[in-house]
């Protein structure tokens, strides 16, 4: 098996920044990314998007250009279309490119696998026509495709406004925004107002988006306390209740419903590697353990960006630089004093970047009833397991998510528990009267994404057509 000094998984802001930092220090990293082009979710399709008007996707999007240019220009072995489906603590990486699987070993690995949308289980969320707002935004960026009208956005958080505004600018009509942010969040967020004032840039941006929505005359319902997607074969409408009118179901016709309750770290790989994860009550998600440089508790693994806790694209970029520096230092490529000198200004910028987070997290914290839905709501989409079934099994004395999984098949489908894991842990913790730490999470196993038997067989030692890593120069 070929061994390389440094592998970076993911080509979003964190991964690209890590690659640039390593390259500038004379070490040529290999960057594996599943997508055909660099940018991650935030700068998705930046080089090719048909939406060239800089106003449309906004300044924050086009900020990614310099990182992408560096990835293209610097000596980086960038491998787009390479899906990492297996990873071991020994640094063994299973990658799939096209129909060919291959194995490579890296002495150090920077995980920059980013975030995913928080599961948002409501009645009817499995209907065609219902999707994540983040997924809809990807469609818009990559192909300029606008979801079918009438369209409703529901949920909470800055991305919800951003997607609504981007759709409006792209010429789509938005029928309504249903805001689920609980009333008391404003009061709770005030405790962190100091950080918010220092992070004024974010607040100003949020206010600007809201103004734009208001100007466009978009219906904006606040304090939504219940939501359901309606329809038989596909979405035909959306129903909701508000705190002000708790007994009335209000309705609106819709063929598209975009849901969003913020993003959470994508922990598939850190979980599969068996790293320690802590529950963040502030962000309501699991965070793999890492130090200020991104060193994980798994030897030779580093975590950069939102995969280690949500901080946004700018923070991810800075964390990518730090993780690369730490990896270079542990490889002996730079010395300790160089690490300290180079990291100091990055750390300062990072601190300034993160200062607004406690405020944002408190303001857009999804309420309990959204995270632990009623019994009839499907939680595991792959195996169609409802919240009620999870509660029933919990009452029989189910020890945790892994026993739940083996008893009910909840989390056993192709999504590998991405869409139900958080909900299951939160429901079990509440039912058993335990903390999230005591409850735990799914034990994840490869492949991280499905791979065919034929593709896997191609990784066998004597398989013909295995890619020759030796032919490529990966180390400097």
């Amino acid at each position, binding site marked *: 098996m070929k061994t390389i000094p440094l592998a970076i998984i993911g080509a979003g802001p964190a991964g690209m920044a890590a690659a640039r930092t390593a390259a500038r220090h004379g070490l040529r990293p290999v960057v594996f990314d599943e997508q055909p082009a660099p940018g991650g979710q935030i700068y998705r399709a930046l080089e090719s998007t048909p939406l060239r008007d800089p106003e449309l996707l906004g300044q924050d999007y086009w900020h990614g250009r310099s990182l992408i240019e560096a990835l293209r220009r610097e000596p980086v072995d960038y491998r787009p279309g390479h899906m990492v489906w*297996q990873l*071991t*603590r020994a640094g*063994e990486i*299973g990658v799939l490119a096209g129909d060919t*699987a291959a*194995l490579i070993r890296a002495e150090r690995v920077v995980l920059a696998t980013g975030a995913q949308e928080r599961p948002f289980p409501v009645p009817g969320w499995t209907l065609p026509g219902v999707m994540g707002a983040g997924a809809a935004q990807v469609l818009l960026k990559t192909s300029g495709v606008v979801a079918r009208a009438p369209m409703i956005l529901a949920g909470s958080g800055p991305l919800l406004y951003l997607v609504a505004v981007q759709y409006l600018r792209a010429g789509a009509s938005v029928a309504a925004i249903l805001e689920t942010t609980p009333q008391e969040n404003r009061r709770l967020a005030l405790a962190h107002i100091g950080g918010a004032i220092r992070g004024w840039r974010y607040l100003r941006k949020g206010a600007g988006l809201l103004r734009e929505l208001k100007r466009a005359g978009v219906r904006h319902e606040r304090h939504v306390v219940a939501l359901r997607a309606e329809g038989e074969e596909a979405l035909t409408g959306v129903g909701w209740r508000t705190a002000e009118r708790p007994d009335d179901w209000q309705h609106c016709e819709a063929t598209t419903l975009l849901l969003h309750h913020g993003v959470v770290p994508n922990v598939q790989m850190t979980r599969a590697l068996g790293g320690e994860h802590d529950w963040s009550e502030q962000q309501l998600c699991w965070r793999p353990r890492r130090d200020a440089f991104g060193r994980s508790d798994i030897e030779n693994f580093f975590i950069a960006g939102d995969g280690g806790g949500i901080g946004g694209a700018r923070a991810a970029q800075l964390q990518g630089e730090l993780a690369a520096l730490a990896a270079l230092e542990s490889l002996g490529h730079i010395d300790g004093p160089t690490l300290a000198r180079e990291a100091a200004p990055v750390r300062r910028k990072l601190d300034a970047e993160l200062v607004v987070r406690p405020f944002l997290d408190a303001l857009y914290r999804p309420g309990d009833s959204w995270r632990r839905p009623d019994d009839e709501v499907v939680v595991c989409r792959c195996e169609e397991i409802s919240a009620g079934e999870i509660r029933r099994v919990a009452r*029989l*004395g189910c*020890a*945790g*998510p*892994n*026993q739940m999984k*083996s*008893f009910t*098949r909840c989390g*056993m*489908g*192709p999504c*590998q528990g991405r869409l139900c894991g958080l909900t299951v842990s939160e429901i079990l913790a509440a039912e058993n009267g335990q903390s999230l730490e005591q*409850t*735990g999470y799914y*034990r994840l*196993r*490869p*492949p991280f994404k*499905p*791979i*065919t*038997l*034929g593709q*896997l*067989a*191609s*990784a*066998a*030692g004597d*398989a013909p057509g295995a890619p020759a890593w030796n032919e490529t120069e990966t180390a400097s």
Partner: protein
Amino acid sequence: MANYDFAVVGGGLVGSAIAYGLCGEGHRVVVMDEGDVAYRASRGNFGLVWIQSKGLGMPNYSDWSQSSSRLWLELAPELKALTGIDVQHQRSGGVHICHTEREWLQRRETMDRLSRETEGRFHFEMLDHRALASLVPAIGDDVFGASWTPMDGHANPLYLLRALHAGIHQRGGEYRRGGPVRRIARDGGGFRLERDGESVHCQRVVLAAGLGNRGLAEQVGLEAPLLPNRGEVMITERVAPLLDIPTTYLRQTGEGSLQVGDSHEDVGMNDGTRTEVLADIAQRALRAFPRLRDVRIVRSWGALRVMTPDGCPIYQASVTHPGAYLACCHSGVTLAAAHAKRLAPWIGGGECPEEIVPLTAERFHVRVSETA
């Protein structure tokens, strides 16, 4: 402090089947299980109820497995009636695939030997390619043949575990989870079991903690010479009906997914997966079933078999600590019916099933002295 007739240490397939049987006889039973993350062989099980090739050199083990295969026909409907859970048991017969003529000839020799050793109580047939293809139409053209027995079959091991737990609950048994049991001490006429934050008193104790038996057996005058042996298994997305009967390393579950596996590695207490092993498993499965090339794998896992030096189970009552029993085996699914319906009644005070009389750990000492 609660007082139980029996404490069963281990809530996996072995412990649960025994506890289920003991509850059925009216005993007051507590199952002491570990938490959500443990070395759980029961969750990694392949799901075969498998007779062929078991008991070579130990015909009693073949008889014991065959007895369980027959009792499965009672256990599965009983669990369904009691708990509503269909454990998807099928006694459909099963095949062991031989890719080449050489493999086929070797297999025939092994099967012949097993048949001789059991004095004809083990029945099998060797199938050529055509006969195999009529049973398993999806089989690849290059496969030479197979061995077949009518007694083999399969079940869903996860539903079995769930049904046994539900059955224990229905029959009035208690299930307690916590840390591993660390200490077993004599206490009056019975035993006291200790683990972090808890101490349980019982009249008799059954050790069914898989590899965990290693640290417990010696506390009650028994020995459990066990080693972990890792098997890696993959499961695919659901596909249209493809296989009516299970094979040694590929079976179709009741849900339609395919389970692919059967590897043996000596890697200590490591239940991860290795890409090379998985790739080899995939390659072999494709040699037998080329049409599966584009079927997607959604999950893989490693699990540790509870392996004795000769691969046969150990069942033993303690002489020095009357009332303490030991059960160790790697075939928790195959033997579930025998454990519930024959082993439990013995532990509960009945007669010892004759097949398992020689299956004590004493056999390892005999061998040592013979070869010394």
